């Protein structure tokens, strides 16, 4: 008892009491506390992000009119090119639907894209995630794919009312079915730990021996429809070489992920569109 009464031992007793209380707390209360503390600070992060946008806006305001005219001209050219692509896509989509109907195969899932700003990034050795400024109010759900112009970014891990947490494609906890471009046989993509001062990378596994990559070339690793909520054919990364795995049956290799992954400002969430029910059905 003398040990407890000693003043210098009090911090250890307090720590022990905290740990003991935490151990006996019901899981529901722990989850409620976590949600409460998250919701308490979420508006502050959103406000900081809006402040960043405002700073960016004033930076852009300081650009000269000549620069803006040039940007406008470039955008007009891009818009014209994209308009043509949309027309091509529409005709290709109609052709796919026709073939699906003829062959009686299930149709490809359709997605609409919700654009969201990135609030914060949490890139550590053990996990890699980002928080985005859209949540359940905007139709986001856990497991939905997050993409950008260059391909796949990750998957939604946690959804709150106005924010969502995305597990990045480089995170060691991220795993998805994929295809090596031009081959329909499925492979597995898995995030790995990145060594210091290197670009993000991942690993491709379960590659059948028939798939090869010639020396000096690289092949695109793309998402597969087997990967759940991911649109098919989006870039995950590039594979430079494959080598036999430890089991001798499959090959594995390193996947180079885009360096932009860690400084994106805006992303899109692929929200699956429910198939339309026609009058005949």
């Amino acid at each position: 008892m003398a040990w407890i009464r000693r003043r210098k031992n009090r911090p250890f007793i307090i720590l022990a009491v905290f740990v003991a209380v935490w151990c006996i707390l019901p899981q529901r209360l722990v989850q409620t506390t976590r949600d409460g503390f998250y919701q308490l600070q979420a508006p502050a992060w959103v406000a900081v992000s809006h402040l960043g946008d405002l700073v960016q806006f004033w930076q852009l305001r300081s650009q000269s009119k000549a620069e803006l005219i040039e940007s406008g001209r470039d955008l007009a050219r891009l818009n014209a090119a994209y308009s043509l692509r949309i027309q091509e896509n529409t005709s290709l989509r109609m052709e796919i639907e026709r073939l699906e109907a003829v062959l009686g195969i299930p149709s490809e899932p359709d997605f609409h894209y919700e654009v969201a700003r990135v609030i914060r990034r949490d890139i550590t050795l053990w996990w890699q995630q980002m928080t985005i400024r859209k949540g359940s109010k905007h139709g986001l759900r856990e497991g939905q794919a997050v993409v950008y112009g260059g391909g796949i970014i990750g998957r939604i891990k946690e959804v709150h009312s106005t924010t969502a947490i995305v597990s990045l494609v480089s995170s060691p906890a991220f795993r998805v079915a994929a295809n090596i471009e031009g081959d329909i046989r499925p492979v597995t993509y898995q995030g790995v730990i990145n060594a210091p001062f290197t670009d993000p990378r991942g690993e491709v596994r379960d590659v059948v021996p028939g798939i090869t990559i010639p020396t000096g070339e690289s092949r695109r690793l793309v998402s597969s429809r087997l990967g759940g909520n991911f649109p098919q054919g989006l870039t995950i990364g590039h594979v430079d070489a494959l080598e036999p795995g430890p089991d001798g049956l499959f090959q594995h290799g390193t996947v180079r992920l885009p360096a932009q992954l860690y400084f994106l400002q805006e992303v899109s969430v692929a929200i699956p569109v429910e198939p339309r029910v026609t009058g005949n059905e």
Partner: protein
Amino acid sequence: MNRFGISWLIILGANALLFVLLTWVNQWLSMGSVTIYLPAAFVLFTALHGSNRIAFATALVVGLFIDALSPLPYFSQTFVLLLCTTILMSLRQRIRRSSLMQTTAIGLVANTLAFLTLTLLFSLFSTLPLDLAVFLRIVIDLLLSQLVFLAVAPWFLEFQKSLLSLSGVNPDAEEQQKS
């Protein structure tokens, strides 16, 4: 609001500022795949100058805020901050708390212990293989964190002391009375 409440809110505000700054720096450093951890910086001031109540309350609230954003089991980072506070409080009678050099040195030791405890907890909850890349990353992260701690801790201690002085609280009063 009483003196305790005001002091505590000031300390929490300063910690929130440090947390936001640290997040920004880590976002920028993420391009180089390195991360800075400064758990001891959040509790150093209150553990060395505050009462049991203010020190543990700060560690608990700051820890729960940080934990709410991480995918680890809840309370893991709070536990590390509480542990840091306990270690610092048990050692504070042996150092001259008005000396920045001594407080920074003891903070450095606490930060190393906190970093290693966090690493142990992360590796327990993770299924990752502990290979050379992991070891290298841990070493680089630790070295970088300690360097940043050396630069940030004296400033942050003085910053918190100045904020409290502005509100009429003298954190060194207890030590001055003793001497």
